[in-house]
Every structure is written in C-alpha cells, then in structure tokens.
C-alpha cells in the first residue's frame, strides 16, 4: 500500500501543526502524521498563560492555543490530511517513508518532509532513580492535566527551569503539596515571577542543592538531599531527608533526532539547545534539501518558538517546491522577525549562543 503527498509533516505538536497549517494555506498538499491518539503534542497539557507578545497568543493558556491550532487545521481539509496513531518507521531514500499504524504498514512518497518530533525528558543520576514514583515533569503534567490524576500527594520537584517552576504551580492547582524544589545551580534557572509564585505559596526553593537518593523499597517514600557548591561537588555533612511520595524530574529535554540521522542530515552537538540537533539554516532546512526541521527537534525552546519555527518551515518547504511567492515570503519574514524579538533580552542569551553556533556551522558547510 502506498500514498503520495507533497509535504510530509512528522509530529502534530505546536511546530508540526503550524508547519502543516501554513503549507496547506499556501496551497501545498500536506500529510500530517502523529503517533498519538490526538494532536497538540505537549501543548494540550499546558494550563498556564503563555508569555511572549500579546500579538501572538501571550496571556492565553497553552491548551487553548492548541484548540485554536486544531480548529485552523480542521478548516484546511482540502489540502491537509491527518493520520493519528501512526509512526514514521524510517526513510527509504530521499523521498519515501514508511508509516506504521495499528491497522497497516504503508509507504508514502513526498517532495519535502518537515520533521517536528519534539524532545524526550532527561533523567538524572542518583541512587534509586528507577523506583516507581520517580517521574519526568512531562509525565506528571500528562497525569494531572490530561487524565485528571494526581501523581502523588507530596512531591519533591527537581529542577528550577521554567518547567520545574511551572509544573510545581500546576501541582498545587491540582491539590498536591510540593514539599520543595531542588536546584543544583546557585540561582533559579527559570523566570523569577514563576519562582515568586510558588515561593509565596510556601514551597521552599533549595538552590545549590541536589538529590542524593530516592528512599523507599517498592516505591518512593522520601528523598535525601544535600548541598552542592558552585562546582556541583556535594558539601559534606549537609544531607537531610524529606518525606514525599513522588519525585518529579524537570532536568531538561533532549531533541528526538533519529529521523534526521536516518536521512543523513549533518548533526551538531549544541549544549545550549539540548544536545544533538540537525544543522539547519534560517529557513529551517537541514543539509538534506528534502528535510526541514521545527520545534524542539531543532533545539529545546518553547511552544511559541516552535509555532513560529513551524511557520517558517511550512512556508519555506512550500516555496522550495512552488517558487517564491509574496505570501510565503511574508510568512517567513514575519516569523523570523518575531523569533528574533522573543530571543532578544537577557533570558534569551543561551538560546542566541546556541543558534549562533548553528549559523556558523551551516555557513561553513
């Protein structure tokens, strides 16, 4: 069995949805594929209001943004086909992929593919980190915000980036007590307004601390924490135990990049972007001219940048097939300009360094 499309989009989170919507709006035939039962990626779990520009969804809750994108996609049925519960199992040459769903295996030929596979949670090394009750922050959000189930009654959060801070707040909204937040750096990593929010609700933030071990035999019953110095060395005689029934790890994400490696895209390791990413230009095109990238797979950032990167990729892929058009050009220009604004300012510094590394490498190619 096989099917044909113009632009294949892998992954229906904010990046993939946006890429598919833009490409379909510009007139391309698009096939959007996602391995979940529903579209929206991580956006459906976000209950907090988004930051950024009010011209682009700031102040709106993440899951409402997802609903908006889904509505937009639903209005493009003429050009946009969606397959759920379907995994891309591999690329066969430059323009063919294998699709696996519970019902069948089939091949699809395409002219361009936009890979928006997102990222996976990092784990952390500490004794007993494999005990039942040690969950990634994404898992905690899925349980709470998608399935309406508390991950526990007393949680210890590890990591003070935006995810750790935001999920701590969401836990309290779900009626869960957050016994503390542990951060190995000496300062808080995420936005300070998020930190203030949970601090004034009584959550202690232990900067310069790390988790030494999870306590419990068949499941988490507590955690051992200790202080660390600026070089992340444990400070002797500073250990203390906290009682908890769940440990949530919010210690970063790593891009999911297997498909790029399969497509022989040149990869580069950029710490600021979360690890190995496919080299790509400002149009989100990789070193394989058929393959584009957007979202966390292009570097760990946020949903807003995923949406904008997806729009760039969708318009660029369309342009590369049909030639330049005023409409497509405007989509790219607007999105690139918005991305620049979002990444300006002190909190965007790391991302800017990371993106500069990519620009340097791709011009050298």
């Amino acid at each position, binding site marked *: 069995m096989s099917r044909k499309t113009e632009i294949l989009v892998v992954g229906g989170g904010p990046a993939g949805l946006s890429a598919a919507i833009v490409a379909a709006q510009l007139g391309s035939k698009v096939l959007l594929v996602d391995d979940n039962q529903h579209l929206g990626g991580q956006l459906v779990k976000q209950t907090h209001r988004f930051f950024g520009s009010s011209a682009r969804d700031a102040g709106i809750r993440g899951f409402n943004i997802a609903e908006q994108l889904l509505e937009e996609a639903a209005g493009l049925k003429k050009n946009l086909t969606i397959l759920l519960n379907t995994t891309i199992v591999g690329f066969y040459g430059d323009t063919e992929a294998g699709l696996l769903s519970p019902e069948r295996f089939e091949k699809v030929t395409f002219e361009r593919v936009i890979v928006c596979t997102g990222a996976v949670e990092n784990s952390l090394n500490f004794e007993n980190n494999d005990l039942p009750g040690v969950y990634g922050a994404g*898992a905690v959000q899925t349980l709470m915000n998608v399935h309406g189930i508390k991950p526990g009654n007393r949680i210890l959060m590890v990591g003070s980036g935006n995810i750790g801070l935001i999920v701590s707040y969401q836990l309290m909204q779900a009626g869960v007590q957050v016994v503390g937040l542990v951060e190995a750096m000496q300062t808080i990593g995420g936005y300070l307004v998020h930190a203030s929010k949970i601090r004034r609700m009584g959550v202690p933030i232990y900067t310069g601390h790390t988790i030494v071990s999870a306590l419990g035999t068949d499941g988490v019953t507590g955690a051992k924490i200790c202080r660390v110095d600026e070089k992340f060395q444990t400070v002797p005689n500073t250990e203390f135990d906290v009682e908890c029934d769940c440990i949530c790890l919010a210690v970063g994400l790593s891009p999911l990049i297997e498909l790029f490696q399969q497509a022989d895209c040149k990869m580069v390791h950029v710490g600021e972007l979360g690890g190995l990413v496919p080299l790509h230009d400002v149009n989100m095109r990789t070193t394989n001219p058929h393959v584009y990238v957007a979202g966390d797979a292009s570097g760990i950032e946020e949903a807003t940048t995923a949406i904008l990167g997806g729009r760039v990729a969708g318009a660029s892929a369309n342009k590369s097939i049909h030639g330049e058009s005023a409409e497509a050009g405007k989509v790219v220009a607007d999105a690139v300009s918005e991305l620049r604004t979002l990444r300006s300012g002190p909190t965007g510094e790391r991302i800017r360094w990371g993106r500069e590394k990519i620009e340097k490498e791709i011009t050298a190619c």
Partner: protein
Amino acid sequence: MSLRIDDHPVLSFKKGRKVSFLFEGEKMEGFEGEPIAAALHAAGVRLLRHSPHKHRPRGFFCAIGRCSSMMEVDGEVNVMTCITPLKEGMVVNRQEGHGVIEP
C-alpha cells in the same frame, strides 16, 4: 485519599465510561480510553514490573511510551501501558523481566 482530581481551577476532564479490568487477578475500575498505567496509578498501583537482572521494582517515567511501563496485557508482553488505552475486561499483569513472546 483518592488520586483522582475532582475540582480543578482551570481544567475539566472528559472521561469515557467507567470500566472494570483485572490487575493481578484483582478486579479494578478505571475509565475507558485512559492509559492503563494511569488507571492503575489512580487506583494506587505504581509498581508495574520488575527489571530483568536485578529484579528491581519499576514504574513508568515519561508517560509518552519511551520508558519502563511494559506490562503483560491480555496475554501479550511488552505492552507500553503508559500509552495503551484501557478497555473493559482487560487482564493486566506485572511483567517479570523481559517477558516471553509466544512464537
């Protein structure tokens, strides 16, 4: 204390119908369509399997199908319960080690 959230300040949860299933021979309840691991979690079960070599207790980690939630469901092993939807009458057991795949 039930782990199901009754009153959320921002979200409302649409659940499928209540269904019963078996876990280790014991009758349990959950909602049709939610992941098996979530239904078990709500019922207080976090230990989903034991690791192959050191027999360590394991639960899930990521909830998107890339971790350690493999269990035996309706006789089939290595079912990723953190993403597999619950159906009425399912027979769910802890998986010990790698599980055995029938030829």
